[in-house]
């Protein structure tokens, strides 16, 4: 890395958020590995259980989170431009994507329970309900954080506000990123 690029590189957000991201990635890595081991040891059970999931719910939720992340990234970029424009709309849209994700999830869980699938049914459904619930808690916390970002995004530009906004955005992107792998492992493979 040359001198110029060293001068330009910086840690996005507060350094502490990256410690949290690292911890969360390691915890979820364990979840991913548990699902993969379950899949290896009980291929038939996992395959038939996976077949009962409605791929449309998973696909819709993936597109919702990807689009929500896109909106947040635009909101942060616009805030940095500091051109006086009202960029709260991007955070409002991202909050909406998170709320629809959660509503979608409740419908999906409800449909599974109505069909007699519970965490006690087999290992696949135990992982499915527990890990997607832990992820949904992340989405809920993310929506709360986005509500703060919504207010902060109208504050005058300062380096502190910028870091705060970036930290909240990084958490939201983490929520998106974790879902990508859960979606692949539960619905697609």
């Amino acid at each position: 890395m040359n001198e110029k690029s060293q001068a330009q590189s910086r840690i996005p957000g507060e350094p502490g958020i990256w410690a949290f991201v690292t911890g969360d990635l390691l915890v979820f890595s364990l979840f991913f590995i548990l699902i993969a081991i379950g899949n290896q040891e009980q291929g038939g059970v996992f395959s038939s259980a996976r077949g009962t999931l409605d791929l449309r719910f998973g696909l819709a939720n993936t597109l919702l989170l990807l689009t929500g992340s896109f909106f947040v990234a635009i909101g942060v970029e616009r805030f940095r431009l500091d051109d006086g424009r009202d960029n709260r709309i991007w955070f409002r849209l991202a909050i909406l994507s998170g709320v629809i994700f959660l509503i979608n999830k409740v419908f999906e869980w409800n449909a599974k329970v109505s069909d007699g699938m519970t965490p006690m049914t087999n290992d696949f459904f135990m992982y499915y309900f527990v890990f997607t619930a832990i992820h949904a808690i992340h989405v809920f916390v993310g929506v709360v954080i986005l509500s703060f970002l919504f207010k902060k995004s109208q504050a005058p530009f300062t380096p502190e506000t910028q870091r705060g906004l970036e930290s909240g955005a990084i958490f939201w992107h983490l929520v998106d990123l974790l879902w990508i792998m859960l979606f692949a492992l539960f619905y697609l493979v």
Partner: protein
Amino acid sequence: MTWAWFLLVAVTILAWWLAEGEQKMADATTTAILLTAGVKIWVIGYQFMELKLAPAFLRYGFLLWLIAISCILVFLIS
């Protein structure tokens, strides 16, 4: 930024299409699905989380984690 979103959506649709036709080549399809998930995660990290601006230890640390977990999952599932 917009290209990243289009790429992510396109790769998601590709993975969905691969999953729908899974019976064709199960192992190769599973590997492809996990790799497309890895690519999406990298785009989210690099572009949206702005690791492209971050110091090398953070950028490559994230990449190292992603390669490690992708390899483990491909090994266990394929």
